[in-house]
C-alpha cells in the first residue's frame, strides 16, 4: 500500500518537475532551433529542431551587388556569420568579459575584508553596520538609478567602462553571503593564524579566502550572471558609444533592423551570448550548490 502511494507521489512530483522543466527549456529550444533554420522555415514554422539545412540565398548579399553563387550558403552558416558580421559581437563579448570580471574582482576585494570584520572582529557599532548591510539588500537598483546616473554624468563618466563597473563594486549581497560563511569558520583557526604571525589582512587573503572558495563560487555565479545579462544599467549609461556595448545591448542591433525576419542571426547571437554562462554553470554546478547551502565547511 505504502509502496503504491509512494510511487504515485513520485509520479506526481515528476510530472510537476517535468512541467517546470518544459517551461524553462522551451525558450532555449526555440532559440537554438531558430538559430539553425532558414528565414523561410522560421516563418512557416517547419523543419523541426535543425531545419532541412538546404542551400539558401542571402538576399542582402545580392542586394549589395555580389554574384549569386557567392551568396549561397547553408542557413546555419548564414545565421552565425550574420550574427558576427552585422554587429561586432566579439567586441561586445569582450566588453562583457571585461566588465563582469572587473566587477567581480573588485566586489571580492571589498566584500571579503568587510565580511571578515563583520563576522569575526569585535568593534563598536558592528551590529549597526551589519543592520545597514541587511537594509541595503532591500534597495532595488532602479530606485537609485537616476541619482547614480546624475552623479556619473557630473563626473563625466557616462559612456566609459567606469560607468559600467563603479556602481556595482560594493556588493552588499556579497558581504552578507561571505559574512554568513565566515561565521562558520572556527575562531581557533583565526587565533592560530594570529599566533603564527599573520596580520588581519593576511588572515583574510591567506586563511579565509581559501576556506571560502565554495561560497565565493556561488557568489561569483550570482554576480557574473547578473552583470553579464544586465540590460538595464548599460542601457542607461552607454548612450552613444557603440564600442562600449555589452552583449545584451548588442542584441538590440538586430531588433532594430528594418526587414523584420532576421530572427535567425538574432537567435544565433543570443546563443553565442548565453553559451559561456551555461558552460560556466555546468562546470561549477556542484560547488555552486555547496556554496548556496553553505555546507562546504567540514
Amino acid at each position, binding site marked *: 500500500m505504502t509502496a503504491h502511494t509512494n510511487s504515485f507521489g513520485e509520479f506526481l512530483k515528476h510530472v510537476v518537475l517535468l512541467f517546470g522543466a518544459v517551461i524553462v527549456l522551451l525558450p532555449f529550444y526555440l532559440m537554438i532551433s531558430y538559430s539553425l533554420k532558414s528565414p523561410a522555415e522560421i516563418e512557416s514554422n517547419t523543419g523541426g529542431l535543425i531545419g532541412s539545412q538546404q542551400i539558401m540565398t542571402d538576399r542582402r548579399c545580392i542586394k549589395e551587388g555580389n554574384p549569386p553563387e557567392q551568396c549561397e550558403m547553408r542557413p546555419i552558416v548564414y545565421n552565425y556569420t550574420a550574427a558576427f558580421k552585422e554587429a561586432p559581437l566579439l567586441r561586445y563579448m569582450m566588453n562583457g568579459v571585461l566588465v563582469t570580471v572587473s566587477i567581480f574582482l573588485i566586489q571580492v576585494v571589498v566584500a571579503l575584508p568587510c565580511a571578515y570584520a563583520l563576522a569575526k572582529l569585535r568593534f563598536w557599532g558592528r551590529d549597526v553596520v551589519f543592520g545597514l548591510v541587511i537594509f541595503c539588500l532591500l534597495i532595488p537598483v532602479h530606485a537609485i538609478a537616476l541619482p547614480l546616473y546624475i552623479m556619473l554624468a557630473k563626473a563625466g563618466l557616462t559612456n566609459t567602462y567606469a560607468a559600467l563597473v563603479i556602481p556595482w563594486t560594493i556588493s552588499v549581497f556579497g558581504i552578507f553571503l561571505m559574512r554568513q560563511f565566515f561565521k562558520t569558520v572556527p575562531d*581557533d*583557526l583565526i*587565533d*592560530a593564524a594570529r*599566533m*603564527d604571525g599573520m596580520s588581519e589582512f593576511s588572515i583574510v587573503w591567506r586563511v579565509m579566502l581559501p*576556506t571560502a572558495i565554495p561560497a565565493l563560487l556561488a557568489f561569483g555565479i550570482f554576480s557574473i550572471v547578473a552583470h553579464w545579462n544586465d540590460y538595464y544599467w548599460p542601457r542607461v549609461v552607454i548612450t552613444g558609444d557603440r564600442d562600449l556595448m555589452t552583449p545584451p545591448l548588442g542584441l538590440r542591433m538586430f531588433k532594430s533592423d528594418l526587414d523584420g525576419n532576421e530572427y535567425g542571426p538574432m537567435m544565433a547571437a543570443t546563443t553565442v551570448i548565453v553559451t559561456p554562462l551555461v558552460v560556466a554553470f555546468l562546470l561549477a554546478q556542484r560547488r555552486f550548490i555547496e556554496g548556496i547551502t553553505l555546507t562546504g565547511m567540514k
Partner: protein
Amino acid sequence: MASITLRNISKSFGTTRVINNVNIDIVDGEFLTLVGPSGCGKSTTLRIIAGLEAQSAGDVEIDGKVVNEIRPSRRDLAMVFQSYALYPHLNVYQNLATPLMLRDLDFWERFPLVGALLPGRKPKVQALNAVVREVAETLKIEHLLDRKPGQLSGGQRQRVALGRAMVRKPAAFLMDEPLSNLDAGLRVHMRAELAGLHRSLGTTFVYVTHDQAEALTMSTRMAVMMDGDMLQIGKPDEVYDDPQNLRVAEFIGSPQINVLPGESDAQGRVTCAGVSLVRNLKQTAGQNLSVGLRPEHLEYREKPAKDCFSGQLTYKENLGSDVYLHVALHDGAHNIIVRAQPHTADDISIGDTVSVGHVPGKALVFDSNGERLAMVASGKARKVA
C-alpha cells in the same frame, strides 16, 4: 625558554567577571597545568598569556618584561588548540612551514610569483625546509607531509598541531585542552608522549585542561582555578594530599573525595557521622564543618567497631585492579565510596550492611567557608603512639 608571570590579572566580559585577580609565577622550563571545571576562566587566562585576549587589569610579564601591548606573534609563544586549527587548504608540510615563512621571509619574499624570483629567498626556504623535516621526524609524521588535514586521523592532526607549534622553537608552549578531542586510549598515550616531549625540549609548557587526571599525571605544578579564582598552586601530590580548599579537594581525585558533615567540641575534637577523628583541630571552629575522606583512606572492615561508619552497600564498581564500594550510610543522607581489593569485595554483595573504617590521620577538615583547617595530633593519640 622563558618564565611567565601574571600579576593581578582580571578579566570581565561586559559586566560578567571571569577572572578575579589571578597571580602566577611560571618558572622557566616547568610544565604548569591550569585545571578547573569548564567556565572557570582557565582558557581565558591562557588566551591572555598568548595575547589573543586583552586583560581588563593587571600585567603579563615574559622573562621579566611586561608584554601587555605586544602582539601575539611577537611574544614568541606557540599555541596548540583543542580543535587543532590546522589550515584546511594547506598540506601538512605547508601547515608546518607557515609559522616559519611568516617569521623568516619578508613581505615581498612571501608574495606569490614575485617572491620566487628574489635572490634572498632560496637559502631561507632551504633552512626552514630543514627545520620542518627535523620536527616531522621527531613527531614521526614524515610520511604525512603531503596530506591535507582532512585526510588525517585525530591523533595525526594532533601531532601536526604540535609540530606547527614546535617549528618556531618558541619560548613557551601554550596548550588549550589539546587532548580532549582524542579517544580515551590515545589520550592516555599522548599524555606520556607530551610529558616526554616536555622533558626533551626543556621549554616552559602552560597546559589547560578540565581533566584532573591529565593535570596530575603530566605537570610539574598545577594551578586549580574555579569561578575565576586561583584556588591553589602546587605540585600534583601537594594539591592532592593537602588541598587548601574543599572545592579543590572535591575537584582533584577520582572517584571524588567523600565529604561528610562534622562538628567540633571545645577541645577541637572532631566527630562526623558518629565517628571521632584521631587528630584535633589546632583552633576550635565550632559546628558546620566538612570532613573529607578519600576512597583509598577508607577500608572495609568485617566487624563493626566504634570508629567505623556503617551503611548498606548499594553498588560495586569493579575496575579490575580495584573495586569501589558505594555505601549508603545509615543516617540516610550520605553516600560514601570506599576502595577495596577485589578479593575482599568478593565476599560482600549488594544490600549487605557493611562497616567502614578509616586510615587514621588522613581526614581533611574544612570550615563552613570551605577553607582547610590545620590539625594536630591529640594528646591521647600521642600517648598511644
